[in-house]
């Protein structure tokens, strides 16, 4: 399950929906808007998403993670729109019987999502023109 959201991510609800009684391990990742990047003071971020393809690619990543790792379920959400410091930009949750595969699958998901989903990020700064940043120059959260 993967969605693109225009509104704040409700991690509590997502977690409750994911958990089941076979799950011994729950691992989650939250990527949040930081107040700085590459030495610049960041004030906000704009995420633009090519939604149809992003969702297709995200579901492929979910299927890959299920094949590679022994997990019970995975879920994820990515925000679009204008976010401020502290907002959650991306959330990934994984449940598994054992913790090793939960950690591995969660990390795989976020790594692939950051590199493969057609999502773009424009950083707004205090004393500089806003700029579209890339995965490679942005060193990643």
């Amino acid at each position, binding site marked *: 399950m993967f969605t693109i959201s225009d509104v704040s991510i409700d991690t509590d609800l997502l977690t409750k929906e994911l958990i089941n009684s076979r799950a011994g391990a729950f691992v989650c990742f939250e990527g949040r808007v930081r107040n700085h990047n590459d030495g610049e003071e960041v004030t906000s971020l704009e995420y633009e998403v*090519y939604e149809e*393809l992003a969702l297709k690619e995200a579901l492929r990543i979910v299927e890959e993670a299920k094949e590679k790792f022994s997990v019970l379920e995975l879920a994820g959400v*990515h925000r679009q729109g204008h976010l401020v410091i502290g907002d959650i930009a991306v959330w990934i949750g994984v449940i598994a019987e054992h913790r090793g595969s939960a950690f591995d699958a969660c990390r795989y998901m976020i790594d692939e999502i950051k590199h493969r*989903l057609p999502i773009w990020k424009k950083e707004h700064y205090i004393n500089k023109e806003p700029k579209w940043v890339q995965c490679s120059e942005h060193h990643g959260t």
Partner: protein
Amino acid sequence: MEKPKVLNIHYYAMLREKAGKREEDIESFAATPLELYKDLAGEYGFPSDSRSIRVSINEEFQSMDTALCSGDCVIFIPPVAGG
């Protein structure tokens, strides 16, 4: 004589800003996305180096050398930065 293809093009992020629009229908003789990108880069001032640009045709990632067909929805994907 060859007829031009009708292509539906969407723009995102920096390409949207440079093109000044989200979407347009154009007529083009470009055989591939690579040729199309070069035409559009000339017109709108997109980055001239196309090596970091990927393309989606009809909502699937495709090679920049795929043959374009009339009616295709083409979306160029500049470097991404999710998360």
